[in-house]
C-alpha cells in the first residue's frame, strides 16, 4: 500500500516521457521539437489516414517541409540548410514519424542519404549545384543501393559503371528505392574497376527509367520504386570524387539509421497515446478496460519500452554530436527501437479490438509501416549480427 498512498500525493508524470527526457534537451532543441510537432499535428495528421488508404504520398507538403528547414537540417547554413545538431535531427524524425513513417522516410532519404553524401563526398561544384535546391525541396533525391538479388549484402552489387572517355556508362537495376519516382537526381552506387563509387544520375539522362512499386501494404504514403539503367551515359562531373568502396554508402546509412532510431519512438508514442486514452474510457464488465491487470501490464510494458528507446536515442545523439558515435552503437538502437515500436503498434492494434483493424485509428497504419522500417536500412537480423560481431569479434554474416 505504501506505493499507492505515495502516488496519490504527488503530481503525475507525463505518460509519454516518464524519465523527463525533455529536460535533457537544450532550449533550441525543444523549440525544434515543438515546431515540428505542430507541423505534424496541423498538417500531417489531418490528411495522413486517407493518404495511406489511397496509397498516395502527400507531395503537396514538400514546400512546407522545406520551408520549415527539415531537409538537410544538419548541413551548414552556407548551403541553405539549418545547421542544427544531431539531437535536433533526431527530434525532427521522431515528430514526423509520430505522423507517419512515410513522411519521415521522405525526409531521411533526402537529408541523410542524398544531401549528406553530396556534402561529404561531393566536389564543391556538386555541393553548390545541388544542395541549396535540395534544401528548398525543388530538387528531390533518391538513394540507389539495394538490388533485386539481395539488399543485406550490398557488396555483391551487379550494377556497374565503365569509364568511357570523360564519361561513365552505367548498367544495372536498383530495387525498393524510396522517392525513386519523385526524384530529379538518384545517388547510384555502382561497381567500378576501382571498387564501389557513387554517381549522380539525373532524370532525363538517356537509358535511366524509374517504375513505382505498387500493391504495397506498408509505407503506402511513400513512393517506392525500381530504377533501371540501360547504358546510361553520365559525365565524370557527376561522380562523387571523394569516396571509394562500401564505406561510401555505409556511412550514409549510418546517418540515416541514426535518425531512424528516433523515428519509431514517434510512431510508438502515437499508438500508445491512442490506446491509453481508449482503454481508460472504454467500459467493459462494468469498469474501464485500463483498470484490469493484464491491460495495465501491457500499457506499462509500452511505457517501459518507449522510455528505454528515448534514453538510447538521446545518448546516441549526444555521442554523435560529440563526434564519437560508432556504427555498431547505431545498430543497437535501430534494432531495439524498431522492435519496440512494431511490438507496441501490434499490441495497440489488439487492444483496440475490432476498431483497431481500420485506419480510423493509427496503430494498424503504424504497424504496417514499421514492417518496412524494421526491414530497410539493415534488417533486424543484420543489426543483431553487427552487435554479435562487435562483442565476439567474429563475423557471422
Amino acid at each position, binding site marked *: 500500500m505504501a506505493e499507492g498512498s505515495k502516488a*496519490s*500525493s*504527488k*503530481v*503525475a508524470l*507525463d505518460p509519454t516521457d516518464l524519465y*523527463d527526457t*525533455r*529536460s535533457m534537451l537544450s*532550449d*533550441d532543441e*525543444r*523549440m*525544434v521539437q*515543438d*515546431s*515540428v510537432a*505542430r*507541423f505534424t499535428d496541423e498538417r500531417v495528421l489531418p490528411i495522413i489516414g486517407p493518404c495511406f488508404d489511397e496509397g498516395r504520398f502527400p507531395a503537396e507538403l514538400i514546400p*512546407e517541409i522545406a*520551408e*520549415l*528547414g*527539415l531537409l538537410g*537540417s544538419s548541413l551548414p*547554413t552556407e548551403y541553405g*540548410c*539549418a*545547421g*542544427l545538431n544531431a539531437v*535536433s535531427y533526431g527530434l*525532427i524524425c521522431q515528430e514526423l514519424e509520430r505522423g507517419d513513417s512515410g513522411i519521415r522516410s521522405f525526409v531521411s532519404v533526402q537529408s541523410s542519404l542524398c544531401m549528406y553524401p553530396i556534402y561529404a563526398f561531393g566536389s564543391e561544384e556538386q555541393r553548390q549545384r545541388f544542395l541549396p535546391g535540395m534544401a528548398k525541396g525543388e530538387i528531390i533525391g533518391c538513394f540507389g543501393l539495394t538490388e533485386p538479388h539481395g539488399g543485406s549484402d550490398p557488396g555483391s552489387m551487379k550494377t556497374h559503371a565503365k569509364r568511357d572517355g570523360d564519361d561513365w556508362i552505367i548498367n544495372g537495376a536498383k530495387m525498393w528505392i524510396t522517392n525513386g519516382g519523385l526524384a530529379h537526381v538518384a545517388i547510384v552506387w555502382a561497381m567500378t574497376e576501382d571498387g564501389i563509387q557513387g554517381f549522380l544520375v539525373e532524370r532525363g539522362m538517356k537509358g535511366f527509367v524509374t517504375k513505382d512499386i505498387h500493391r504495397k501494404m506498408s509505407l503506402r504514403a511513400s513512393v517506392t520504386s525500381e530504377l533501371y539503367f540501360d547504358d546510361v551515359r553520365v559525365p565524370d562531373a557527376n561522380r562523387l570524387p571523394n569516396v571509394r568502396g562500401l564505406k561510401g554508402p555505409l556511412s550514409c546509412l549510418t546517418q540515416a539509421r541514426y535518425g531512424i532510431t528516433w523515428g519509431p519512438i514517434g510512431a510508438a508514442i502515437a499508438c500508445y497515446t491512442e490506446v491509453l486514452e481508449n482503454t481508460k474510457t472504454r467500459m467493459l464488465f462494468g469498469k474501464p478496460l485500463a483498470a484490469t491487470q493484464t491491460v495495465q501490464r501491457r500499457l506499462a510494458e509500452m511505457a517501459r519500452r518507449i522510455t528505454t528507446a528515448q534514453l538510447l536515442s538521446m545518448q546516441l545523439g549526444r555521442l554523435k554530436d560529440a563526434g564519437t558515435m560508432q556504427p555498431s552503437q547505431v545498430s543497437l538502437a535501430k534494432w531495439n527501437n524498431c522492435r519496440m515500436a512494431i511490438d507496441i503498434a501490434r499490441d495497440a492494434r489488439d487492444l483496440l479490438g475490432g476498431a483497431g483493424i481500420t485506419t480510423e485509428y493509427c496503430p494498424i497504419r503504424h504497424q504496417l509501416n514499421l514492417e518496412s522500417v524494421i526491414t530497410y536500412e539493415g534488417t533486424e537480423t543484420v543489426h543483431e549480427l553487427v552487435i554479435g560481431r562487435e562483442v565476439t569479434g567474429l563475423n557471422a554474416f
Partner: protein
Amino acid sequence: MKILVALKRVVDYQVRVQVKPDGSGVAIDGVKMSINPFDEIALEEALRIRDAGKAEEVIAVTIGPQQAMQQLDSGLAMGANRGILVKTDKAIQPLTAARVLAQLVEKEQPGLVLLGKQAIDDDCNQTPQMLAALLDRPQATFASKVEIDGQSATVTREVDAGLETLSVDLPAVISTDLRLNTPRFIKLPDIMKAKSKPREVIELDSLGVESGDHLSYTRYEPPAQRQKGEMVADVPALVAALQAKGLI
C-alpha cells in the same frame, strides 16, 4: 513606427494541468511551457504589420523568470527584431505587468502596443486595459482585424452583437482575440539566426515599479469530475428527463 509586443510564459495549452497536492497552485515543474497563445497572435500581427512596411521594428517583451528567455527566444525565432526580459521570480499580477510595460513604453516610445486579450493561465483579461489607462492612450480590445492607416488604426472587435469597428489614434494599445490570425510556424534555420538578435535583461526590481500583490490566491482545486451521463431512448424521454431535473 515601433511595435511593442508582450509575451507571457504559460503552461502549454495542450498540457493537462495538474493542481499541486497541497492546493497551493498549479504544477509547472517539468511541464511544457509556451508563449500564451493570444500573445503569439499579437506577435504574428505585429510581424505582418512590419512586413507590410508599416512598422520598422518589433520588440518582444516578457516579464518572468530567467526561463522566460525560452519564450523570448521563440518570439525572436518567429521574427521579432529584439527582445527584453524583465526578470523576476515572483508571479506577476496584471497591474504590475501593466506598470512594467508602461515604463518600457515610456522608454521605447512604440506607436503600437499589441498584446493578447488574456493569458490562458489566470484568464485575467486586465493587463491591456490597465496599460492603456496608465498611459492615457486609446485602447481597442479583442481585435479580430487590425488595419494601420497612417496615424490611426482601424480595429474590428468581436462583440456579442456581432462585429464592431473602431478607429483609434496612434499610439494605442490593442489586445488580440483568437481569430485575428494563425501564427506562423517557427522555421528551424530561424532558430539559429535568432541567436544573434539583441536580448536585454532588466531586473524588475531595478525599475522601481510598485509591485505589491493586489490579489491573494487562497486555494486551487481541480474541476469537479464529470458525472456519468445517462442514455435516453428518444426525444420524449429526453424531455421527460430534463423536466424531472427541473431544467425545462
